[in-house]
């Protein structure tokens, strides 16, 4: 497949695998028809992503980018996390084969979806408080 060593390393030893049971935000990305599906769970405290976990059904690149994005996001503020693009993830993995670049989009989308979900829940909470 022509994966970099870093991709293979993350693929074989993915970080932050699993679910967070009472997550502050849950995001999903991907499409079963295309063979890449990802779930991202985040815990947020004071606008900082304190914990993050993922579940991914997908190819080597999908799993490695999932793993890498969780590493990149963990400990970052929401704002910082939203700045992470698919290129950031791909570069952090020493690149991806051209036909696999769409997998890095998955990682970006997953994080954004989780943060979106977190924000929606916050709004709901705020509304309840009001």
């Amino acid at each position, binding site marked *: 497949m022509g994966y970099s060593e870093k991709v293979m390393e993350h693929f074989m030893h993915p970080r932050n695998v699993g679910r967070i049971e009472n997550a502050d935000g849950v995001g999903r990305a991907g499409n079963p*028809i295309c063979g*890449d599906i990802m779930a991202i769970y985040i815990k947020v405290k004071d606008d900082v992503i304190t914990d993050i976990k993922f579940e991914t059904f*997908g190819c080597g690149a999908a799993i490695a980018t999932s793993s890498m994005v969780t590493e990149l996001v963990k400990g970052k503020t929401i704002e910082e996390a939203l700045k992470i693009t698919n290129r950031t993830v791909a570069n952090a993995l020493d690149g991806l084969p051209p036909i696999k670049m769409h997998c890095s989009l998955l990682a970006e989308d997953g994080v954004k979806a989780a943060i979106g979900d977190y924000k929606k829940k916050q709004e709901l909470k705020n509304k309840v408080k009001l």
Partner: protein
Amino acid sequence: MGRFIYLDYNATTSTDERVVEAMKLYFNKLYGNPSSIYKFAQEAREAVEAARSKLAKILNAKPEEIVFTSGGTEADNFAIKGIAYANKEKGNHIITSKIEHHAVLNTCKWLEKQGFQVTYIGVNKYGIVDLDELRNAITDKTILITIMHANNEIGTIEPIEEIGKILQEINKQRITNNKPRIYFHTDAVQTVGKIPIDVNELGVDLLSLSGHKFYGPKGVGALFIRKRTKINSLLHGGHHERNRRAGTENVPGIVGLGKTCEIAMEEQEKEEKKPKALRDRLEKAIVEKIDDVIINGHPEKRLAGTLNICVKYVEGESMLLNLDLEGIAASSGSACTSGTLEPSHVLLALGIPPEVAHGSLRFSLGRNNTEEDIDHVIEVLPPIVKKLRAMSPFRKGREGGLRWDTQKR
């Protein structure tokens, strides 16, 4: 690279040592151009004709019915476009199946752009083409039916002989009614050398084969073209191959393919038996050791060495990568391995949902596999699946529970 277990014989095989040996002489000893008239070239010409006879023999055809090509893809393109263009005044309709190799499907798709009409016949859950659907698809405009002999992904062997008989009946009537006859092509790239083949029993007018799928050289194949078949050339040029396929003959390749057929005729039974025993052993163990596995393809009418499974909740490429790290070479119908976004069209045609089709693995066995190879696979595959399933958002009983955004990205 440590232990290496090759389980991808349907993708390609190594070239038999005896075949390589037979080719040697023709690279820089008897290198003449078979079309030249001097004695030196005659030796090359005779070698080509000897090879042609060997191909004729393994197919029970006549030597003059064999045309050498650069492989299975060229043979398929040649057969389909050749019949289409030579008979386009008589009709523009072609029938094929949904599970053909891309060499057939993409040729048909291209022809659709050129104004031909193509019907893609469905298959049952084992991958057997629906004969009623096929029969009903035939119109007055039908000029060609092309159905593969055995499928490369799942190994299912199609009822070619039965279709041949149906067509023979239909053609009889058509000829009395002054309607054009329907030609019948089969892509036998996965069967030649693996099961006995007789073009007359099969009732086909055209048959494609490829050397590198049965221990022959890459880059050489052949098309059987029954006498009196009206066909256009695909490669136009010089008067080679009785004006049917232009281009200086690939003499070493052709000699190698001839030798390949000779060996296959002698050793085919043996070649069938061993992979079958090992395949059955592997299949049994996988079913026992891994939950939620589907075996694809026909239980009996299947190539001896082919085992195609779907492992639910995990994706194919990620399994392949893990197997590769264990020194095991296999393949998958996952989108990721084909460079497209969709999983195997063959598995989808069986009615398998896309997310399950993405989790397919194909083990195709051949002459060098041993029991130890199989035992190693049986040992390493279950933990690989376990690990990947632990990572997967899909779960048993929850397949439909998680709702995914199904928009295409």
